[in-house]
């Protein structure tokens, strides 16, 4: 992830603007590049696709994936759907929140780790499940969660 750069954003938009239904692919590309959708991206995207700022904003705010501010260096998504509930994900969430001192949707003060909730990672035979920086983990006990958090946030 790199810091917001309007030229870079413009280049990514150019690559995709001709696709039919290009808005979601563009937003995904911008979030992949910068980790979130910078407010300045809205007019660039609106101009490229010839739609209103409101339409772009409406789409960004509709989907849970698109972030409005930069996430931490690492992102931990914890599944809170029924299958994981049946295997104690509420206790897992509580453990992680207590350990990090943040709640779901927040980032640790050192900007090291963002924790987010997600409804189903499709790993329901190995609940509770989490995803750390896009990699799946199953049968996640509080101990496993500690291990994952330690390895992700350990100073290099």
């Amino acid at each position, binding site marked *: 992830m790199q810091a917001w750069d309007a030229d870079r954003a413009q280049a990514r938009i150019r690559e995709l603007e001709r696709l039919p239904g290009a808005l979601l692919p563009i937003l995904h590309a911008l979030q992949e590049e910068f980790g979130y959708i910078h407010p300045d991206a809205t007019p660039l995207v609106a101009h490229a696709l010839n739609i209103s700022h409101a339409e772009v904003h409406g789409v960004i705010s509709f*989907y849970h994936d698109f972030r409005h501010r930069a996430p931490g260096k690492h992102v931990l998504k914890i599944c809170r759907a*029924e299958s994981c*509930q*049946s295997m104690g994900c509420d206790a897992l969430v509580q453990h992680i929140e207590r350990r990090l001192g943040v709640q779901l949707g927040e980032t640790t003060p050192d900007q090291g780790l963002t924790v987010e909730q997600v409804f*189903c990672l499709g790993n*329901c035979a190995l609940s509770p499940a989490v995803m750390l920086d896009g990699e799946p983990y*199953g049968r996640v006990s509080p101990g496993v969660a500690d291990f994952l958090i330690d390895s992700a946030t350990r100073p290099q």
Partner: protein
Amino acid sequence: MKVYVPRDSAALSVGAEGVARAIAKQAASRGWDVSVVRNGSRGMFWLEPLVEVETAQGRVAYGPVSTEAVADLFDAGFLAGSKHALCLGPTDEIPYLKQQERLTFARCGIVDPLSLSDYRAHGGYRGLQRALRLAPDEIVIEVINSGLRGRGGAGFPTGIKWKTVLGASSDQKYICCNADEGDSGTYADRMIMEGDPFVLIEGMTIAGLAVGATKGYIYCRSEYPHAFRTMQRAIAIAYEHGYLGESGYLGANVAGSAKRFDLEVRLGAGAYICGEETSMLESLEGRRGQIRPKPPLPALEGLFGKPTVVNNLITLATVPIILDKGAEHYRDFGMGKSRGTLTIQLAGNIRHGGLVEKAFGITLHDAIYGFGGGTASGRPLRAVQVGGPLGAYFPDSFLDTPLDYEAFAARKGMLGHGGIVVFDDTVDLAKQARFAMEFCAIESCGKCTPCRVGSTRGVEVIDRIIANDNRTKNLELLDDLCELMTDGSLCALGGLIPLPVMSAIRNFPEDFDKPAPISPGIFDSKNRETHPWR
């Protein structure tokens, strides 16, 4: 020598990547010539990472294999299929697999998902070859005769839908694959994308030939990054790699037929509602995933206003075998109006969680105990939710229900996408009912009032019931609200969320008749510390 280590997300989630690396490293240091194939999963997730070796007697399985166990396996001579504490014997003889009827999943876990030659060697593209010899309406009739119904949950006859699209005249038609598998307890779509992506490409190509569509989109949920990448690579391979001098399997000249079919995989963005077909179309067009009122049917005015086949991934992935083996072969499986096989996904608090493809008609009990081995916790089973977050909660007295669309409907339940989530006796159904409404409030697209407002009011009413505040009157109110949401919502989210809520009340009334806890709002984090349920 060939060793198979799955690349399926679930296998990766318990360390398959490290095991694959350790095997390559051990082989290199011992001077063995071992090729590690990264296959899909066989669907026995409690045995993952499940490592298989190819021997003269067929494939032999070992699992669950940890990175630490790899050196020991080499010492024991596992490359020759030798005995070891982790040895499970010949893979095909494992009862969990042997008792299944794998049609859609015939290749999953067996082939290298990104090898077109492997795909063809295991019967791949035979369905397409036959489809290319048939007229479009003959393909449609074949699918109608197979009795295939939509596997996404609604169970609409697939061939009838195709017939409508075939009959529509337009300069452009589309095939859209719904791979927005958001229901908790389901992972069959993901397994196909990661384990046998070409079967989906073949199924969509056949659908294109059948209805005259030249372009397809796969709408894959963003929670499946590995599936998305595997699908992207498989599509690229299908475009590029002609086989033995033939043309590619996608593009302007599909398998040398001079017919065009283009395919693209798109990523969702974390909205459950985009699993609803019209929301998915809106999302593909680059808009908020708000549902469209029907009519017009997507079959007539779908993607970009053009006639569109929208099918669930499993539906489309089942088409190749129907064309290959014939409609009768497929129709011979199943019961009543549910023909063929169901891809049952055992999930939640279950000992042997995994994918079980069986003809429709086996009972919940046989699925959960015969295959699943009961609860993972070892505690008594108390509730099962079938069909995802919009499915009903059944008590153990309902376990004799056969897995069949009509049998579930008769018990006010829904088979849905075939996911079965098991709960042990620690579950609180009032909490689950509240979650259902909360989930609906979070995921509602906001288009219609019964769902948008009703779900939030529903959470509040359930909170009052839990708090023993005018309990009888509030239960009546909730019943009324659920009736309104069922009848008045535009789509299945608001229309079906009363199913888990009311089934919890109907089947587990004791959970709504407890003394009031200290504070309501169990999901408000400020209440977490004090709430007795936590």
